[in-house]
């Protein structure tokens, strides 16, 4: 069973890896005709493109980093406030956050595109992090709220007695104890931003500003039948490697974040 699960998860990825090292002729050769030849040509091709492929990775990283920072800056106070709040407002905000977390992003694109045009935010990577922050906030607040709930009240009372104000209590007492939850949140937000498609598709049109998902879609836009699959597979591999590393290294944080938000949200 375990082996089956491994094959199911990995086989499509390994096939991309294999394809990325094959010359184009080998990919369309009749089955069994050509012996495997290995080449780096596909990688050379996409890295020499205009703009070169690493540019998309850089763009996605910039948006992801900006989104993560902005989300944490807004989610931490919100989660703290929500945890301290009692009564109808607490319930209302929690339900609204859950509803927003479930909402399919794609249904927002048209109105957000109008907004971007009206405010001159199109074709701006940092501006893109605004809607991304909004999309990330529901999950981020729910995860961080759960973490605040685990902080003993006595701790904060003691800090109050020592005369620390709210920003100081957060900065020096509470947040240092919440590092795991903050790390989980940051990774989930980064993943969401790295993978988002419909909004980036409609906000960004200049080719040197494309994020990874839309750059991939552009490659596919050429034609349904004549896709440079070798080059494409190389792009898939390069686009996946940062995420593979992220998931392998931070697997525990990702799982903790997802489940904390779910269990206690």
């Amino acid at each position, binding site marked *: 069973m*375990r082996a089956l*699960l491994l094959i199911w*998860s*990995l086989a499509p990825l390994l096939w*991309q890896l294999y*394809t990325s090292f094959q010359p184009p002729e080998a*990919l369309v050769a009749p089955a069994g005709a050509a012996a495997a030849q290995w080449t780096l040509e596909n990688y050379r091709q996409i890295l020499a493109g205009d703009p070169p492929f690493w540019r998309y990775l850089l763009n996605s990283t910039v948006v992801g980093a900006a989104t993560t920072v902005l989300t944490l800056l*807004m*989610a931490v*106070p*919100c989660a703290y*406030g929500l945890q*301290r*709040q009692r009564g109808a*407002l607490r319930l209302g*905000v929690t339900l*609204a*956050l859950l509803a*927003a*977390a*479930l*909402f*399919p992003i*794609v*249904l*927002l694109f*048209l*109105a957000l595109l*109008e907004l971007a045009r009206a405010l001159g935010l199109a074709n701006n990577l940092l501006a893109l992090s*605004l*809607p991304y922050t*909004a*999309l990330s*906030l*529901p999950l981020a*607040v729910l995860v961080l709220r759960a973490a605040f709930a685990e902080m003993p009240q006595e701790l904060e009372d003691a800090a109050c007695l020592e005369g620390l104000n709210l920003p100081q209590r957060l900065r020096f007492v509470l947040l240092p104890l919440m590092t795991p939850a903050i790390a989980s949140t940051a990774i989930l937000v980064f993943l969401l931003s*790295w*993978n988002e*498609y*419909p909004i980036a598709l*409609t906000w960004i049109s200049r080719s040197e500003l494309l994020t*990874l*998902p839309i750059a*991939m*879609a552009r490659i*596919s836009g050429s034609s*349904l039948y004549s896709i440079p*699959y070798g080059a*494409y597979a190389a792009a*898939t591999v390069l*686009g996946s490697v940062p995420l*593979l590393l992220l*998931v*392998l290294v931070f*697997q*525990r944080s990702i*799982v903790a974040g997802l*489940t904390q938000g*779910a*269990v206690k949200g």
Partner: protein
Amino acid sequence: MSGINALLMLPALLLLAATFLLPMVRYAWMSGHASSVVTGLMAIPNGGANWQRLLQDARFWQDAFQTLRFAITSVGLELVLGLSIALLLHQPRRGRGLLRAITLLPWALPTTVMALGWRWILNDPHGPINALIIRLGGDSYGFLITPSTTWLFTVLADVWKTTPFVALLLLAGLQSIPTDMVEALTLEGASRWQILRRLTLPLLMPFITLALLFRLAQALGVFDLIQILTRGGPAGSTESLAFYAYLNAMRFLDFGYSATVMLATFALLVLLSLGWILLQRVGSRRTA
């Protein structure tokens, strides 16, 4: 004291309102107007003509059917597979962390990336599956060009990508079940199947509901996958509501009608979610 809490929540809530609420209000307004190339992109009130058109739009209803078919099939499969994987990952074994990380990989990759990957895997006749069929002496199959079956392969790609998410949520649920309850039942002589049905599944229900609602909402809004894998084809057989709304806005430049389709999709989503919650209520009352 309560005022401070509200103030702390305010920035986040304002941004959320601007991103989620404002579009819905805007769509409600747009759906009451004609706003397309015909009107020179000017919004002119048209007295509900968009909604009348929606009722008679065969393409909308076909897409609604196809979207439901896609969502119900993939979410159903994801729940069954996700539960099996969660049970598998729950067993204490060495290397569990690594297995969990690898299981998670498909979920972490951008949909567009793997949608193109699947297009290559399902390619006719050069993809690996068809290569294998040919080598075994069969005829290659047009996975993505056969109107009657192509939707099944959009389901396959979706199940591959999102089952890990469902599995993880359910795994969290399994871990919240006290082990001494399982041990007690085992001592009483309950079989593994009985434990699963009488203890595990009922306790897991909140998690199943959460996973189901989340996945249902995402599947009813399926867009990236369809746009990259099939472009709604062949012959419109995989076109989803979200993709139709997108085409109306970006290809046909009919913004009033696009907003109407989006609102209708949203309404469908709300109805289905409420339906499930209601069904659950009735079900739990009966067992209680």
